[in-house]
């Protein structure tokens, strides 16, 4: 049964119309045309933004075992690059970065949790792919990290490229896009290798650390995180080879564009703030800046906040409580964190891929 919500009314009597305007013959043919007018919303996504505002906090799906991105810190709190974006969204909506409830999710649970409306937004290093975007009825808001599949090897092996790895054994987690990319990469280069597949990331990593494999493959960010947790990180190196594109970012359920807009403009706002040189330290002085873009960004001028359904100074709150993109990056992924060079995650003006949309 499909119950389509038309505003406040429900029209369960009407058979589902396969195409708008093309109504199947039904007894109440006269009443039927009301149905195609229903906005195309999924039951869970429709009024999500209002629901969140009424609830008073956001529910954020995160990782809890990936150092740098989403993990539980020694104080027992959720922390990491992705977690900071949850805080930024909460700061934008409620002016309070702590108005978040975290839901730790494993890879297999993450998409259903969003589809069923259990969480408001998913920030768990999830690759933006066509199938997930369409068939799984999800909407990515933005990209907050450009990743790629990499290969970690031992320094003493002397490998520099995948071509050097003739006859090598490569550890990999099964059931991911990783194992297909791996097969493609080696086949393309005509290099013979032996894959060894495990179900859990932990087992894959243990087998590599014990020397069962010559290399371990996964997303580069993940490899960096795993490497940082090893007994002797300096004995391992991540090759300068990228086997696939992995754009990661926050996503919401399909159908609630208003909520999705909020998430994406918070991400872009933090990136724009870095570009304009506004940070948590100077945001109060910047309120009196002459730069028109900065004025609009901080809500001194214009009404961008209203159009999003947020207070006009929402970016001030975000910057005060969480910081701009560079601050978040450095805190978790920079030299004091798990140390991933910014590479493609530099601003576009510095030759990277981070390019926030125009703030006007």
């Amino acid at each position, binding site marked *: 049964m499909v119950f389509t919500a038309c505003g406040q009314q429900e029209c369960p009597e009407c058979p589902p119309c396969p195409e708008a305007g093309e109504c199947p013959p039904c007894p109440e043919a006269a009443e039927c045309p009301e149905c195609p007018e229903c906005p195309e919303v999924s039951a869970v996504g429709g009024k999500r933004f209002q629901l969140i505002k009424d609830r008073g906090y956001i529910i954020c799906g995160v990782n809890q075992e990936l150092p740098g991105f989403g993990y539980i810190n020694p104080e027992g709190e959720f922390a990491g690059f992705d977690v900071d974006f949850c805080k930024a969204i909460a700061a934008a909506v409620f002016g309070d970065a702590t108005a978040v409830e975290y839901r730790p999710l494993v890879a297999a649970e993450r998409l259903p949790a969003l589809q069923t409306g259990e969480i408001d937004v998913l920030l768990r290093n999830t690759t933006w792919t066509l199938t997930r975007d369409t068939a799984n009825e999800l909407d990515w808001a933005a990209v907050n990290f450009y990743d790629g599949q990499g290969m970690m090897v031992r320094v003493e092996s002397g490998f520099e490229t995948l071509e050097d790895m*003739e*006859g090598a054994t490569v550890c990999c987690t099964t*059931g991911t896009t990783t194992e297909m990319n791996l*097969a493609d990469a080696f086949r393309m280069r005509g290099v013979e290798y032996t894959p*060894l597949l495990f*179900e859990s990331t932990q087992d894959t990593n243990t087998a590599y650390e*014990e*020397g*069962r494999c010559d290399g371990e493959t996964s997303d580069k960010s993940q490899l960096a995180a795993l490497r940082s947790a090893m007994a002797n990180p300096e004995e391992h190196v991540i090759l300068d080879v990228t086997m696939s594109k992995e754009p990661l970012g926050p996503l919401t359920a399909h159908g609630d564009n208003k909520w999705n807009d909020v998430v994406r403009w918070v991400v872009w706002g933090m990136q724009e703030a870095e570009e304009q040189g506004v940070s948590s330290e100077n945001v109060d002085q910047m309120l009196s800046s002459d730069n028109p873009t900065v004025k609009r960004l901080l809500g001194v001028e214009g009404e961008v906040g209203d159009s999003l359904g947020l207070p006009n100074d929402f970016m001030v709150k975000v910057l005060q409580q969480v910081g701009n993109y560079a601050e978040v990056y450095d805190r978790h992924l920079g030299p004091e964190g798990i140390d991933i060079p910014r590479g493609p995650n530099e601003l576009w003006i510095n030759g990277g891929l981070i390019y926030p949309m125009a703030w006007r």
Partner: protein
Amino acid sequence: MKREQPDISGKAVSGCITLNQGAGMSRGAATVGRRTAVPFWRDERVLKVLAQIAFVVLVLAIGLWALSNYRERGLKFSFGFLDEEASFDLAEGIAFSPTDSYARAFLVGVVNTARVASLGIVLATLLGLVTGIARLSDNWLVSKIASIYIEIVRNTPLLVQLFFLYFAVILKLPQLKVRDEITAITLPGPTYLSNRGLALPWPRPSESFGSWWPFLVVALIVTVLLWILRARGVQRTGHPSFNFLWVVSAFVTVPVIGWLVVPGNPLVLDVPVIEGLRATGGTVLSPEFVALTLGLVVYTGAFIAEVVRAGILAVPKGQTEAARAQGFTNGQILRLIVLPQALRVIIPPLISQYLNLTKNSSLAVGIGFLDLYAVSSTMLNQSGRVVEVFLMIMASYLSMSLSVSLIMNVVNRRIQIVER
């Protein structure tokens, strides 16, 4: 219980009739009348039919409901994906490349499971037989060692044992080589043991193998014939007509003659060589295969040992005493008197141990061995065909288990016939 009551009272009453015939007649008639008057909701025959109908309706309803759910979600039930390119790689067992189909990938899994299960069954039986007998030994040390092994292994979970064996034992073996220096444990052969697996020398058929294998067939036929002849002699006269060694030597000499007659060596010993990052040549058993087979053998062997012990203890003590009185040696008593009788008790529970071993091999997924279940879980993750793949998994395990029990039931029947 209540439903059976009319029957019981009926019988009791008919008992009465035989005792006091005349007086009982009217009561007997009354009973019959009461039986026909049982309301249908208490009539066992009606209830049985109704229960069957209800069961069929339930099964159909569940099936239709599942089907309608399937349709509603726009899913199509089809095995068409089996012809599609798998595009992942598998490196255990028969050759596979990413351009091969899903069907081929599934076959890789089936073959790997069959390899582990068949080798595991043979080795676990041997281990179980030896340990079971050892536990009954008069030698205190031997019997205690056997009991300790059995009790430890039987009372810890198999998955834990497998993880321990793989991560804590096999992966802790030395590396194959460190900085161009071979660090693997090298045994004569050469055999290399490292955490990359066990590399063994292995015979490979050469060009002249084609003209040599008929000798093997002849040797096998001659051996079987001699065996039957010998057994007939025992049946007829009570003594074997010739020594057992004749049978063995026939099995050995015929192929040796063939080896000398055929030009060149029909089998060449392929020796493993450490080349680059791995050992090539010979045969290489992967650490995952070794861990899984060893784990299953050790675990199932402990259960089989108990089955064997139970079977031996089920043979009356008098049998042993009588045999000893007639001058049989201990070995002869075990081989000729006790074991043949114990087998009748041993075989049926042994079948279920074999089935357990076959099904337990699906734990391979935890230690990276590409068995049927591990390959299938990759298949369903990449193709999204959950229902189809699970049906295939179940059908495969079912047919494997049924063939094991079919063979074992035939064996069982042959042994049971001996009983008088």
